[in-house]
C-alpha cells in the first residue's frame, strides 16, 4: 500500500500534447490535441482517492471528481461520463475552459507538494471519448407533463436548463437571438480553444432529447416576455448573458480600426471571418495590434489577431501580471505564441490619420498603490510618463455589461444598479412570477461553470414550481 502511494507521488503530471507554438500561432485548429488513453490512465492513477476530497469543494457544481477518476482507472468510460453528467451537462466544454487552477485543481492535495491531478484534462478526455466512441444512447426521459417552458438564450446556462427540464418530461423551447446557438461558446471563445463542433454536438444531443430550438428570435423585439405567457408557456428562464461591450471612453475611440472584443470575436468566430473571402464577412487585419485588457476575452482576441497574420500583438494592461484575470493556461499559451505584455500601462487617447484611421495610441505608465475595493492593488498613473505606441488595430476587451434590450421591454423585472437582473441565488427566481434568470445576466461576466450551476438550480426550482406552485 505504502509502495503504491509512493509510485503515485513519483508519477509526473501527464503533459497535455499540444500543437507547437510556432505552428499554431498561424492556424485556427485546437491547441491541445487531447490525452491518449494511456495518458488518461496514468494521470487518473495519480489521484489519491481522498476520503474528504478538496477538489470537489473547489468545483462550483460539486462534480464527484474522485468517483469519475476511479472509473477511468477501471477503464469504465461509460460509467465515468454518466458520473460527470450527473452534475455537469457540458463536460467537454468545462474540461477545456474552466479555470481549474483556482477551482478543483487549486484544492487538490497532490498539488500541495507537486503538480495537481490534471482534472480538467481528464474531464475533457472522458467527454471526448464519449462523443467519439460512446453509444450515443439517450438518457431516460420522464413521461410528458404537458408543461411548456421557454428558455431565452442558448449559452451554457440556457442549455443546462433546457437539458434538465426536458429530461423531467417538460416541453422545452430555446429561443436564441443569433442565427446559431451556443452563446459565448460559439460567438466568443475561438475555435482554437473550443471547437464549435463540440458545442453543436451538445445542442444536437439536446434536440434529440426533445428540446426545440429556434434561432433568430430576439426576445423583447420579435416576441415579448408577456407574449410568451400569452402563448401558453408556464415558465420562462432568462439566460441572455452579459453582451454589452464596454469601451474606454477616451478621445479618438471611434476611429476606424478600434473594435470591441465582442465585435472582433463575433466576426472571427460566429461569422467565421478568418476564412474571408470564402465567407462574406470581413475582419480587419492588423499589422500592429493592441489588445486592451488581460482577461480570457483579451487573450482570445490577441491570439486571434496573431493567427490572422499580425506582425506584432501587444496586450496592454493597467495592473501587473499577478492581477491578470485570464486562465493561467491561456496566458501561458499567449506568451508562447509571441504575444507581448505591456503591463502597468494604460491608454489615454487614440490618434488617427486624415482618413480617420487609427495610427497610434498614447499611453501612460502606472504603478501599484494601496489595495482597492476588489482587493487588488490600485494602479496609479506615473506623472509625465506618456509615450506613443504605433498601432493600426485596437481591440477593446475591458469587460462587458448588461444588455438592456430585453429588460427595457419588461418593466416588472427588478434590476440592480448595473442593470443585471435580481434573482434569488438559490433558486434563480426573479421578481416576476413564472420568470427565472441565471448566468452572466445575473452575476455579470463570470464563467461557464457558474452559468451552468445557476441553470441547474433554476431548473430544479422551475420543476418544483410546475409540480407544486410558485
Amino acid at each position, binding site marked *: 500500500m505504502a509502495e503504491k502511494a509512493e509510485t503515485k507521488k513519483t508519477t509526473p503530471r501527464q503533459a497535455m500534447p499540444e500543437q507547437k507554438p510556432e505552428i499554431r500561432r498561424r492556424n485556427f485548429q485546437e491547441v491541445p490535441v487531447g490525452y491518449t488513453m494511456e495518458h488518461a490512465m496514468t494521470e487518473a492513477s495519480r489521484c489519491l482517492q481522498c476520503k474528504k476530497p478538496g477538489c470537489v469543494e473547489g468545483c462550483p457544481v460539486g462534480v464527484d471528481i474522485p468517483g469519475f477518476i476511479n472509473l477511468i482507472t477501471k477503464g469504465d468510460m461509460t460509467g465515468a461520463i454518466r458520473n460527470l453528467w450527473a452534475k455537469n451537462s457540458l463536460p467537454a466544454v468545462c474540461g477545456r475552459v474552466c479555470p481549474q487552477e483556482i477551482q478543483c485543481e487549486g484544492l487538490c492535495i497532490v498539488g500541495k507538494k507537486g503538480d495537481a491531478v490534471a482534472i480538467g484534462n481528464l474531464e475533457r478526455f472522458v467527454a471526448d471519448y464519449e462523443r467519439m466512441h460512446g453509444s450515443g444512447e439517450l438518457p431516460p426521459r420522464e413521461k410528458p407533463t404537458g408543461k411548456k417552458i421557454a428558455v431565452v438564450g442558448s449559452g451554457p446556462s440556457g442549455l443546462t436548463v433546457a437539458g434538465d427540464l426536458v429530461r423531467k418530461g417538460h416541453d422545452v423551447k430555446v429561443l436564441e*437571438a*443569433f442565427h446559431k446557438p451556443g452563446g459565448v461558446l460559439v460567438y466568443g471563445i475561438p475555435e482554437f480553444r473550443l471547437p464549435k463542433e463540440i458545442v453543436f454536438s451538445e445542442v444536437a444531443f439536446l434536440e434529440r432529447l426533445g428540446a426545440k430550438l429556434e434561432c*433568430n428570435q430576439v426576445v423583447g*423585439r420579435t416576441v415579448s416576455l408577456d407574449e410568451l405567457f400569452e402563448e401558453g408557456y408556464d415558465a420562462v428562464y432568462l439566460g441572455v448573458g452579459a*453582451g454589452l461591450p464596454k469601451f474606454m471612453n477616451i478621445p479618438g475611440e471611434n476611429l476606424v480600426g478600434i473594435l*470591441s472584443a*465582442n465585435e472582433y470575436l463575433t466576426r472571427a468566430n460566429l461569422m467565421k471571418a478568418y476564412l474571408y473571402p470564402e465567407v462574406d464577412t470581413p475582419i*480587419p487585419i492588423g499589422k500592429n495590434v493592441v489588445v486592451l485588457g488581460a482577461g480570457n476575452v483579451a487573450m482570445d482576441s490577441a491570439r486571434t489577431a496573431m493567427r490572422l497574420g499580425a506582425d506584432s500583438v501587444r496586450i496592454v494592461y493597467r495592473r501587473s501580471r499577478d492581477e491578470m484575470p485570464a486562465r493561467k493556461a491561456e496566458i501561458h499559451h499567449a506568451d508562447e505564441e509571441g504575444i507581448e505584455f505591456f503591463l502597468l500601462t494604460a491608454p489615454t487617447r487614440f490618434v488617427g490619420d486624415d482618413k*480617420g484611421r487609427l495610427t497610434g495610441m498614447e499611453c501612460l505608465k502606472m504603478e501599484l498603490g494601496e489595495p482597492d475595493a476588489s482587493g487588488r492593488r490600485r494602479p496609479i498613473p506615473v506623472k509625465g510618463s506618456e509615450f506613443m505606441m504605433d498601432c493600426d488595430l485596437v481591440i477593446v476587451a475591458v469587460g462587458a455589461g448588461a444588455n438592456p434590450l430585453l429588460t427595457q421591454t419588461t418593466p416588472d423585472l427588478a434590476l440592480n444598479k448595473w442593470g443585471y437582473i435580481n434573482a434569488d441565488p438559490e433558486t434563480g427566481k426573479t421578481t416576476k412570477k413564472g420568470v427565472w434568470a441565471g448566468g452572466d445576466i445575473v452575476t455579470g461576466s463570470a464563467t461557464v461553470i457558474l452559468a451552468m450551476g445557476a441553470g441547474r438550480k433554476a431548473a430544479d426550482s422551475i420543476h418544483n414550481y410546475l409540480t407544486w406552485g410558485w
Partner: protein
Amino acid sequence: MFKIVQRKEMAGGTIVLNEIEAPLIAKKAKPGQFVILKANEAGERIPLTMADSNPEKGTITIIYMVVGKSTAIFKALKVGEGYQDVIGPLGKPTHLEKLGTVVCVGGGTGIAVLNPITKGLKEIGNNVISIIGARSKDILILEDEMQVASHKLHVCTDDGSYGHHGFVTEVLKQVLEKEDVKLVVAIGPVPMMKFVSKITKDFNVPTMVSLNPIMVDGTGMCGGCRVSVGGETKFACVDGPEFDGHKVDFDELMRRLQAYSEDEKKCYNDYCTLQQA
C-alpha cells in the same frame, strides 16, 4: 428558410424589391424599423429597413440597392427561394406625432425607407410635403407611392432628366422659406442627410435622419454601429437608427462606413468575375 414571395427590379436592375414570408416579424414591424438578413451559410448579416409589412399576409418588404457582394447575392435569389436567416424587427420605431406641416426628404434607396414613415405622418393628420431625388430619372424609385403618401410631392434629378434640375436641398430651402415647417425627416445617402441638416439648422427646424452604419448583430452586442450624436457615442441599432440630424457627426459616419471598402471592392469584383465566367 424565409421565402421570397414577390420580387421586382427597379431603377434598371440596380435596386431590387423582395417581399418575404416572415410572419412573426410582420406582426410586430413598425415604420422605421429594420431587419438583418443572411442569404446562406457563408453569408454576411446585412441590415435593411422594412419598406412595408403586411401582418395579415405575414410578409415584410425590403428594397435594396446592389452595392457589393452581399446585395449582389440577394439579387440572385428568385421567387420561391429565400433567405436562411431574417432577424427583427430591430431598432426603435419612428416616433410619429401630429405636428402640422412636415417635410420628408428622400434620396436613392432612402426613399424606400422614407415611404412608410411618410404614410404614417400623413395618416395621423400632418400636412406632408415630400421631396425625393435621384441622380437621374431612370434610377428614381417609388414616385407613385410617395405621391399617394404625401399631400405634395417634389421630384429632383441631379442631371435634370426629370423634375427639378438639381439637389433636393435646393427645393427644401424654398419650401422652408415659404412654409411653417415643424419637422423635417431626411433619409438617403450620408452627404444628403448632412446637407439637409445644415440647411434646417439655419431655419431652426427639428430634423430627423436615419443612419446606416456597418452592423453585425443589430442588438447592441458589438458596438460596430457606434455613431457620435451630440458628442456622445450611441449604438445605432438599439438607440436609433433615427437621430437628431443637428447633432450627428456625419463626417465620422462617412469615415466609419469606409472601414472595409478595399476588401469589399475586391470581394465584389471577384464575385462578379465568377458570375460572368
